[in-house]
């Protein structure tokens, strides 16, 4: 059980498909918060200023801590309705 990382809409076009970080990598790479998750999955790409972040489907900021079993999502401003 690691961390599920999802990208939606234009963020997926930029970064790529979903990214699964298993427990060993979390430990080995000292991945502690959302910002660390981005850096691991986005392979050096800068995080856009307007990106929205959800952990377990609640909005959070980039300093939020993550733990095994969490679902983390990155996406652009929403445009529904």
């Amino acid at each position, binding site marked *: 059980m690691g961390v599920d990382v999802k990208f939606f*809409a234009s963020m997926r076009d930029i970064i790529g498909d979903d990214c699964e970080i298993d427990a060993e990598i979390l430990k080995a790479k000292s991945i502690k918060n959302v910002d660390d998750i981005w850096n691991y999955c986005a392979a050096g790409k800068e995080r856009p200023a307007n990106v929205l972040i959800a952990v377990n489907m609640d909005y959070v900021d980039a300093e939020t801590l993550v733990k095994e079993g969490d679902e983390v999502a990155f996406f652009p401003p929403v445009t*529904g309705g």
Partner: protein
Amino acid sequence: MKILIDSEPFDPWKVLDEYQKDKADLAGQYGATTVFVGTMRDFNEGDDVSEMFLEHYPGMTERHLENICLQATGEYQLLDSLVVHRVGTIKPNEPIVLVAVWTAHRKQAFEACREIMEDLKSKAPFWKKEQLNDAQDRWVEKNTRGY
């Protein structure tokens, strides 16, 4: 209260007719119903749009729409609320979203319906990609302000 994410075209007036028929317990209680329907236009920002794709984040979408309706229910004493939102491929003139609220008085109905729409537009994880007639498709960058 009902939240529905719909991948098929829906007829807002038929949906309302059927939903309200099942609400016999509310008969005589509500004096005000306010409804908003958002429909796909065939133009946006100066360009002709032939088709649209609406992506969403399954699970998070329903969760946030429910929270939005629950909050409005408390703030505006809603007797009932209904939100239907399309996803997938949408053609011009097809409804995208329906928001309806039932209250005793009109002030709350107008304000709650508008606030649910604004919250939906700023918080519910949906994303529009437009297919233009003479160009590549493009993600819509942001929603226009509603106040």
